[in-house]
């Protein structure tokens, strides 16, 4: 027994476990620490545009001197009510939350239909869901400008149908509505795929059993199908919500000047204001905000594994 247990902890095991840890260390933890350090620095007109800069060649004393200059001033700046960052965080969470609910409302029926479709056409349907990825994300978002703009395809169609008067075309572009449309469109596959995989696993005889025991189809959906698809619902919602909070391209291209999303604020702070330190603090705080749903998701997943 003991020999067997030790066998499981051989060098092979450490190698297998070590690779993902090394990956995370080099490509996640180290960059994060660099960003965190920048967030504790001060802006400077220099190259790079912040100070202090750690120079290991200058010796230990210079290092401790530089270290003592680090402070949380940028965080105080970002978290102060006067500077609209908190508002941007709130509006990002709000837009991401509403978008996620819209995604669920649109994605669930699609995934359900796919899971109920004849087995022979399911691979084709799956292919169609993934198909948009073959075109660049940026180009697809630009395409929506062409559709949603006042003289765009949508307005042309509505005017041709006589629903909208040519003098007052629908103003969708540069509003939050356009941002919702963009997010729902872009993230839909990330919602559909986990939902589909949860629904497809479900045994049809469970619904027959529910009907047999006196449960009409609509009630059976809420009592059987919905609870059994919850792991897929959580996975899909988090896969959409987390990147949507930090989304920058969609609000930048489709949103208006009053669409406040933290990704856009971060980008403005970084490129226009050239404040690496404030944008680093914004990024670190965004990570903290997102850790909460990620931990929640992990918990749900752990529970799900337990149920197997």
């Amino acid at each position: 027994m003991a020999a067997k247990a030790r066998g499981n902890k051989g060098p092979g095991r450490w190698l297998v476990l070590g690779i993902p840890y090394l990956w995370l260390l080099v490509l996640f933890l180290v960059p994060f620490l660099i960003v965190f350090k920048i967030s504790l620095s001060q802006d400077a007109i220099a190259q790079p545009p912040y100070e202090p800069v750690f120079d290991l060649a200058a010796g230990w004393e210079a290092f401790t001197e530089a270290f003592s200059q680090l402070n949380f001033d940028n965080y105080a700046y970002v978290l102060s009510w006067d500077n609209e960052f908190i508002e941007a965080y709130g509006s990002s969470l709000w837009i991401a939350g509403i978008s996620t609910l819209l995604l669920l409302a649109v994605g669930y029926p699609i995934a359900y239909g796919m899971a109920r479709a004849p087995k022979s056409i399911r691979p084709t349907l799956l292919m169609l869901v993934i198909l948009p990825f073959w075109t660049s994300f940026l180009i697809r978002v630009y395409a929506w400008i062409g559709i949603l703009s006042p003289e765009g395809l949508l307005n042309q169609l509505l005017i041709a149908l006589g629903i909208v008067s040519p003098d007052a075309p629908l103003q969708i572009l540069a509003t939050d509505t356009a941002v919702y449309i963009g997010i729902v469109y872009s993230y839909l596959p990330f919602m559909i795929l986990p939902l589909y995989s949860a629904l497809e696993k479900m045994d049809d005889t469970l619904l027959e059993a529910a009907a047999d025991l006196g449960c009409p189809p609509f009630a059976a959906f809420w009592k059987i199908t919905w609870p059994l698809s919850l792991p897929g619902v959580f996975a899909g919602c988090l896969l959409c919500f987390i990147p949507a909070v930090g989304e920058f391209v969609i609000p930048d291209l489709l949103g208006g000047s009053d669409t406040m999303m933290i990704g856009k604020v971060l980008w403005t702070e970084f490129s226009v204001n050239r404040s690496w330190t404030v944008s680093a603090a914004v990024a670190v705080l965004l990570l903290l905000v997102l850790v909460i749903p990620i931990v929640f998701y992990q918990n749900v997943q752990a529970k799900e594994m337990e149920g197997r």
Partner: protein
Amino acid sequence: MSTGVTEKTQTTIGGIRRKFAPWNDPAAVPLIRYENVSKRFGEFTAVDNLSLDIYEREFFALLGPSGCGKTTLMRMLAGFEDPTEGRITLGGQDLVGMPPYKRQTNMMFQSYALFPHMSVWDNIAFGLKQDRMEKGSIAARVEEMLKLVKLEKFAKRKPHQLSGGQRQRVALARSLAKRPKVLLLDEPLGALDKKLREETQFELMDIQMQLGMTFLIVTHDQEEAMTVADRIAVMDHGKLIQVAPPAVIYEQPNSRYVADFVGDVNILEAKVEAIAPGNVSLYTSVGGGAKLSIAQNVEAKPGDTAFVAIRPEKVRVDLDPPAWQEANCLRGEVWDIGYLGDLSIYHVELEGGTRIKAAKPNLTRMVERPITWEDKVWVSWTPDSGVVLTR
């Protein structure tokens, strides 16, 4: 429960079982009626113009190979399929077009179909909650069902925390909880091992008697059907071939198909020579030719081709020609012996290569049997042990 009570119940059950034969009573009104029911899936005819009556309190088995239409027949009663033609009534009420959730039938599924996200308790209570039964009565009924299937201690478990046998019991309890007019069992014991299956068969019979319900079971296992059922319907290609109590199915099959499907059988082709009341004389050219005599009334005339079916346990094997009869005797050589412990199966090869199976109970502890490989033997049977089949 004390043993006294159990014994008393069993004698009562025996008494009821012995007399129970509503299908022979012209005044009895069937609970379930299939009237000229057909079911087609595209080109495929699963059930073909079939009529069948099933009576209250009956344990009825649908037996047949896979694809014979037995499951479709049951699913039409549950409401998962609608017949293409014909009528199905339950207690006089026309069921066609009624959705499954309004029918007073419950089904125990082959896969059990337990709801994985609900505990054993909630699974059993599911159907009762649909009926908006009062909470106290639901609890009482669930407790009663748990007791019936001996799972009181497992009420809070989820299905994945149970063994196969326990899951099977939960499925049974759930389907019984609503006290349906008919309980439908779709290959209910298929997933259990042999010993557990045999135990469960007797438990099913007990439960059916205790609750006084009508059970309809679908199975491809002829032993299971014989053990549990009051009557068996043997099906083939969407048609009923024979509907009768197990003993009649076994001893008086109406066709070669039934004789062959239920149990082991030797079938000899023969020509009818003479017909007398209660007796048929035939001649078979098998094994160098022999006269056959079967004590039976048959609708045939001399010169017709018929088949004589004889079960292995009714065939005698002797080293000397049996002096006591002239018909039903064939000469052969022991080709193989299968020793099963309780029985030995002798495969006797007749002249011309036809083989006859004979089962002999091993009544003594002798290891060396008097008849062995390559012995010249006589196989014979009495006129009242064979059966003449014309189709």
